[in-house]
């Protein structure tokens, strides 16, 4: 392989079956993850045309968006949710697809389950009818969110039509300060490049900061690539990737693993790899970051005040004014100290075991403020089990958090977990859109899980660094 090829181009070229008349490539898909919300209509399209799933063993289903997190006993109280569960069960049986449902100990948020089971591997093309599929890029794969029609295409042909994006390398060098997390890095990048900055690009995250990150931290960063407009994001596989995958259920074992690992590591972009664009950031400039508005780019460092409307470009001011109005915040005010009503730790961005461990360090020996409703929703049943084994459930419960079952929960409120009225929620999720958390007037402040924990304790937006003891910093 040419030394000037970056990982993206190597993986794309390997999977390109042919160029279609439209000029798009027909891309072979290595792993197709499906869930209950965006698949039923796709299976119906197959049924209508009398088609089968071409590679059923390369498709894995789980349930996450609609599952309640308080009581997962069937039938669900919500009849619409129950109908969707029945549909995916029926479809998976009929089309020969493995389903990890609520009775399976491996069930969870699709973007937590894939890596956890070792389904997600470097060099793969991975798709799912969910925009946060970009998460899987953390392993050095091309991981794309797709619509339901494309889900049908991939089910029927294991391929889809796609134009090749450009590749931008996003470099962060230097050292992150104490209390600054992967979530802060990704929020900072989106703030600087904008929610549309990545349109037309795949992002390669590179530099010392990503090299040092654990796989779970890398997943947090890649997860939010889509919020910056990028088609996907990835990090080159390295020894951290190989060590994470070794021994996981769907990963090759023995001699095949060694062969796989060698192939994975060789996919990484080399020092001479070419990119369509390169942007660089200094880790020292990043502090714990909080969104204040209605897009993920509307954020500030915890020590900053909200910028005045006049400081924005004239064509942005309408949206900024609308964000202030909707969020009931004022220009020039600090974000720190803003009273919250709800604290949510969970979602495909930040619900993995390391997220829960770090948040537990902040809450241990403390109590959630009286006026705050706080919940912790593990990303998968296995994360939940691990957390219980480590006693994290008790730390959260003793502190006044509700300890829930695995699911998407309050990230998007397709299930009973929702904001009420104009509640303000400190949330470790990925979207602060109007109404995103289930109430048409609900308000979301995105931040890291440790920042959510700190906000829950103090009852207001807090600089988590003030709650970290020297031992935990």
């Amino acid at each position, binding site marked *: 392989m040419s030394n000037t090829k970056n990982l993206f181009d190597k993986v794309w070229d*390997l999977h390109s079956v*042919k160029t*279609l*008349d*439209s*000029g798009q490539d*027909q891309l*072979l898909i*290595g792993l197709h993850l499906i869930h209950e*919300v*965006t698949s*039923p*209509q796709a299976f*119906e*399209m197959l049924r209508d*045309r009398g*088609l089968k799933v*071409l590679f059923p063993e*390369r498709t894995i289903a789980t349930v996450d968006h609609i599952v309640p997190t308080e009581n997962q006993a069937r039938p669900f109280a919500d009849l*619409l949710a129950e*109908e969707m569960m029945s549909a995916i069960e029926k479809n998976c049986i009929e089309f020969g697809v493995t389903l990890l449902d609520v009775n399976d100990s491996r069930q969870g948020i699709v973007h937590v389950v894939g890596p956890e089971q070792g389904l997600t591997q470097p*060099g*793969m093309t991975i798709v799912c*009818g*969910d*925009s946060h599929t970009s998460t899987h890029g953390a392993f050095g794969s091309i991981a794309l969110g*797709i*619509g*339901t*029609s*494309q889900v*049908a295409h991939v089910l*029927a*042909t*294991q391929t*889809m*039509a796609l*134009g090749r994006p450009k590749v931008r390398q996003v470099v962060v060098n230097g050292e992150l300060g104490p209390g600054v997390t992967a979530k802060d890095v990704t929020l900072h990048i989106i703030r600087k490049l904008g*929610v*549309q900055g990545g*349109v037309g690009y795949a992002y390669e995250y590179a530099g010392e900061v990503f090299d040092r990150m654990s796989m779970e931290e890398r997943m947090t960063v890649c997860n939010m690539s*889509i919020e910056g*407009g990028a088609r996907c994001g990835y990090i080159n596989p390295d020894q951290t990737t190989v060590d994470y995958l070794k021994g996981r259920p769907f990963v090759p074992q023995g001699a*095949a693993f060694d*062969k*796989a690992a060698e*192939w994975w590591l060789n996919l990484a972009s080399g020092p001479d790899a070419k990119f369509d664009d390169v942007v660089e950031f200094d880790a020292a400039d990043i502090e714990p970051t909080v969104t204040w508005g209605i*897009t993920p780019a509307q954020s500030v460092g915890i020590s900053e005040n909200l910028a005045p409307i006049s400081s924005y470009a004239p064509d942005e001011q*309408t*949206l900024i004014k*609308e964000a202030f109005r909707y969020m009931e915040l004022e220009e020039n005010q600090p974000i720190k100290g803003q009273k919250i009503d709800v604290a949510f730790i969970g979602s495909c961005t930040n619900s993995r075991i390391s997220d829960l461990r770090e948040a537990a360090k902040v809450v241990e020996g403390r109590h959630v403020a009286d006026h705050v409703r706080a919940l912790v929703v593990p990303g998968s049943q296995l994360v939940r089990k691990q957390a219980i084994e480590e006693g994290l459930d008790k730390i959260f419960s003793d502190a006044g958090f509700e300890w829930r079952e695995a699911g998407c929960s309050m990230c*998007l*409120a*397709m299930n009973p977990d929702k904001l009420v009225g104009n509640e303000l929620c400190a949330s470790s999720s990925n*979207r602060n*859109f*109007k*109404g*995103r958390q289930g109430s*048409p007037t609900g308000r979301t402040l995105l931040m890291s899980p440790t920042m959510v924990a700190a906000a829950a304790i103090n009852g207001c937006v807090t600089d988590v660094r003030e709650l970290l003891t020297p031992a935990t910093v």
Partner: protein
Amino acid sequence: MNEVEKITGTGIPLLLDDIDTDRIIPARFLRCVTFEGLGEHAFEDDRIQDPEHPFDKPEYQEASILVGGRNFGCGSSREHAPQSLIRWGIQAIIAESYAEIFFGNCTSLGVPAVCASRQTLEALDKAIKQNAKQEITVDLKTMKIACGDQQFDCTLPENARSALISGTYDFLAQLLKSTSEIKERAAEVPYFTSFA
């Protein structure tokens, strides 16, 4: 599959930036196993809060061309978003720019999502607000938008344009033609063969 060359209809103005797909169709309406019935819930939460929302105004109920702003359709990949717009009556979108998954979903459903300059969008917005019955035409062959005696340029990536004009925007039929090539390619990808 129908060829999509030219869309003519009246417009509906929604010239706002960063309209995300949660706003187009709130998540609670995704609790369904078909796309039927999504039309009536398009922009439901925005409409609840804004009695003046264009989707509720009587004069725009017959509109088929949506005029949007920058980064239209950002966020969730839910195809329910364009599906709800189509079922409401939208047949084409003119905006400054789009999020990519939304754009791809529109194209695969035969809805041209063309880009136009801010000036064009403002002129269209003004024309529609002055006269809701004003006919607008989006012509994919000439890549022109006609609105009364005004004419504007618009853009659409060539692969989407050719797919719409030739009526091949549902790629499934084309993809299905390559089954043997797909299997041949799969045999060359190390993980498809378990690194044997």
